[in-house]
C-alpha cells in the first residue's frame, strides 16, 4: 500500500551485532528513498497525512482491456510473457470459446466473486476475482473443465501460492474425497511428481491465478524470494491415498464427512525426502515414529512439520502401535524428557498419506496448515 509509511532498511537485519545494526541500519539510509533511516521515520510520524488518506474508500486500478488481440497465437504467447501473466511456459490461449467451455465445469455464475488474494495478506492490497477470471487462468493452465470445482475451492480460500516473502515459500494443496478418482488425480506411484494431468494442471492453475488474480510473483514488486522455489510452478498437489492409508483422511480429521470433497492448503518451504536426514534409519532397527519425532525436533518452530508418508511407512507406524494420527501426533509432540515440547502446539504437526507401497520412503518439510474448503460447493 503506497500510502502506508514504510521505511526500508539495508537487509538483512538479523544475525548482526549491535555495532553493525547501528552502522548499517540506524545510521544508514533507506535503500529505496535514499533518505537517512531515522530522519525518515521521524518525518513519517510527524508529516500530516492527506485528507484522502484519512477516509475509508475503495480504490480501483485497471489491469488492461478485457480482451487481447486479434493476433497470431505466437504473438499472444509472447505477449503473455511480456505482461508477466504466465509462469514463462507456453499456455493454452484463453479464447472466449475455451473459457465458456471451462465454465461448464461449475453451476456457479461467471460473475460471482469467489474470493480475494494478495502477495502477502496485510501488506499488499487484496484483489478479488470472479468465477470467469479463475476459468481464464484454468484454461491457460491446460485444465479440464471437470477440474474447475477444485480450482474454485482453492481460489475461495484466498491464500496466495507465491508469497512476496524473501523466504521463497510454496503451497501444498491436499485433496480428499471421491473426486480424486472422478477426475483422475494420481495418488499412487509418483503422486507428488508430474505424472497426472489433473495434478499438474490444477497446481499450475493455482499459480497462474495467484499471478493474475492476486498480483503475485511480480519480481521486484510483489516477489522478493532470494533463491526462488521450483515448487511454485505447480505447487505440491497431494491427493491422499485414502484407500491404502491405515488412518482417517486428513479432511475427516479436520471435521469434514468421509464422502465430502475437500481441498486443504499448507504453506511453507516445501517437502524433501526424509532419506537425506541424519535421523534416517536404514537397517532392521527402523522405527519410523521415532525417526519422524527426531526429524520434527530439528525443524524450525515457525511452521512446524508436514510429513507425507507412503502407505507402507504409515502401515509400519500403525504396527508400532499408532493406530490413529492423533496418537502418533501426541508421541511426536511430547518432549523426550520433562522439558518444554519443541513445537508450540500439536497443530504444528501434520501427517498425510499418499504415493505407492513399493518402498519405505517418505517426505517432510516445514509447512503449516492454512485452511480447508469444500469442493462440492463449487460444482
Amino acid at each position, binding site marked *: 500500500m503506497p*500510502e502506508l509509511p514504510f521505511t526500508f532498511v539495508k*537487509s538483512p*537485519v*538479523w*544475525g548482526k551485532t*549491535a555495532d553493525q*545494526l*547501528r552502522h548499517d*541500519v*540506524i545510521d544508514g539510509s533507506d535503500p529505496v528513498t535514499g533518505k537517512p533511516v*531515522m530522519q525518515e521515520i*521521524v518525518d513519517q*510520524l*510527524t*508529516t*500530516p*497525512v492527506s485528507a484522502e488518506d*484519512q477516509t475509508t474508500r*475503495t*480504490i*480501483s*486500478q*485497471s*489491469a*488492461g482491456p478485457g*480482451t487481447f*488481440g486479434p493476433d*497470431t*497465437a505466437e504473438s*499472444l504467447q509472447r505477449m503473455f510473457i511480456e505482461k508477466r*501473466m504466465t509462469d514463462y511456459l507456453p499456455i*493454452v*490461449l*484463453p*479464447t*472466449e*470459446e475455451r*473459457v465458456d*467451455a471451462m465454465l461448464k465445469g461449475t453451476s456457479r455464475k461467471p460473475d460471482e466473486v469467489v474470493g480475494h488474494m494478495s502477495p502477502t*495478506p*496485510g501488506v499488499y*492490497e*487484496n*484483489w478479488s*476475482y470472479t468465477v*470467469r*477470471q479463475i476459468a481464464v*487462468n484454468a484454461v491457460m493452465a491446460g485444465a479440464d473443465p471437470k477440474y474447475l470445482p477444485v480450482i474454485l475451492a482453492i481460489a475461495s480460500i484466498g491464500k496466495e501460492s507465491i508469497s512476496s516473502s*524473501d523466504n521463497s515459500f510454496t503451497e501444498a494443496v491436499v485433496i480428499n474425497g471421491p473426486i480424486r478418482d472422478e*477426475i*483422475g488425480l*494420481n495418488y499412487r506411484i509418483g503422486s507428488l511428481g508430474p*505424472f*497426472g*494431468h*489433473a495434478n499438474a494442471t490444477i497446481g499450475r492453475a493455482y499459480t497462474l491465478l495467484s499471478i*493474475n*488474480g492476486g*498480483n503475485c510473483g511480480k519480481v521486484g514488486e510483489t516477489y522478493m524470494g532470494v533463491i526462488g522455489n521450483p515448487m511454485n510452478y505447480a505447487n505440491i498437489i497431494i491427493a491422499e491415498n485414502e484407500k491404502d492409508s491405515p488412518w482417517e483422511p486428513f479432511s475427516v480429521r479436520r471435521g469434514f464427512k468421509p464422502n465430502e470433497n475437500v481441498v486443504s492448503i499448507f504453506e511453507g518451504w516445501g517437502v524433501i525426502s526424509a532419506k537425506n536426514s541424519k535421523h534416517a534409519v536404514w537397517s532392521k532397527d527402523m522405527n519410523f515414529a521415532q525417526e519422524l519425532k527426531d526429524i520434527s525436533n530439528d525443524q524450525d*518452530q515457525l511452521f512446524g512439520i508436514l510429513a507425507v508418508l507412503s502407505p507402507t511407512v504409515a502401515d509400519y507406524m500403525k504396527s508400532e502401535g499408532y493406530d490413529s494420527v492423533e496418537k502418533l501426533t501426541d508421541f511426536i509432540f511430547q518432549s523426550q524428557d520433562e522439558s518444554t515440547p519443541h513445537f508450540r502446539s500439536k497443530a504444528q504437526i501434520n501427517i498425510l498419506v499418499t504415493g505407492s507401497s513399493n518402498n519405505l520412503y517418505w517426505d517432510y518439510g516445514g509447512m503449516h496448515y492454512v485452511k480447508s474448503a469444500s469442493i462440492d460447493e463449487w460444482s
Partner: protein
Amino acid sequence: MDRRKMLALLGLSPVLAAVSPTFARTAAAFPEDAPGASSCDSGNGAVSVLNPAITTKFAERVPLAPRLSTLDGKTIYLVDTDWGGMQQNNGILEEIQKWFAQNMPAVKTVIKIKAGNFVTDDPGLWKEIAQNHGDGVIIGVAG
C-alpha cells in the same frame, strides 16, 4: 499392430496413456494452437483471448491515523513483529531506542514484543498501547 509398439511409436508409455485419459481429450479440444492451424474468429491465424488478470482491481483502504505535530513529550512504542523469533530482531529496536535517547531525549520509547508471530494479530497489545496513552507506534522488522 501390437498396442505397446504403437504407443512406443507415438512416444507414449502404456502407463502414461492409462493414467492420463484427460490429456488426449484436452489436446484434441484445442487444435488451433497447432502451428499453421486456423484460429477461432479472425482468419489469418489471428486469435482474440481474454485477459486473465482482473479488469478492475478493488481494494478497501482504511483511514490512516492523524500524524503527531511533534514527538517532544510523546510516548512512541517500538513493536517487534517477532519475525523469526525475538532473538533475531529485537536488537534493531534497542538501537532505535538508543538513537532516540541520544538524539531526541524528550521522546519516551517503550519496546514491546507482539504475541504470536509476524503473521498473527495481537489485539491485546494494541489495546494496551491505547490504554497506556501511546502516541505513536513504529512496527518492525520484516527480515
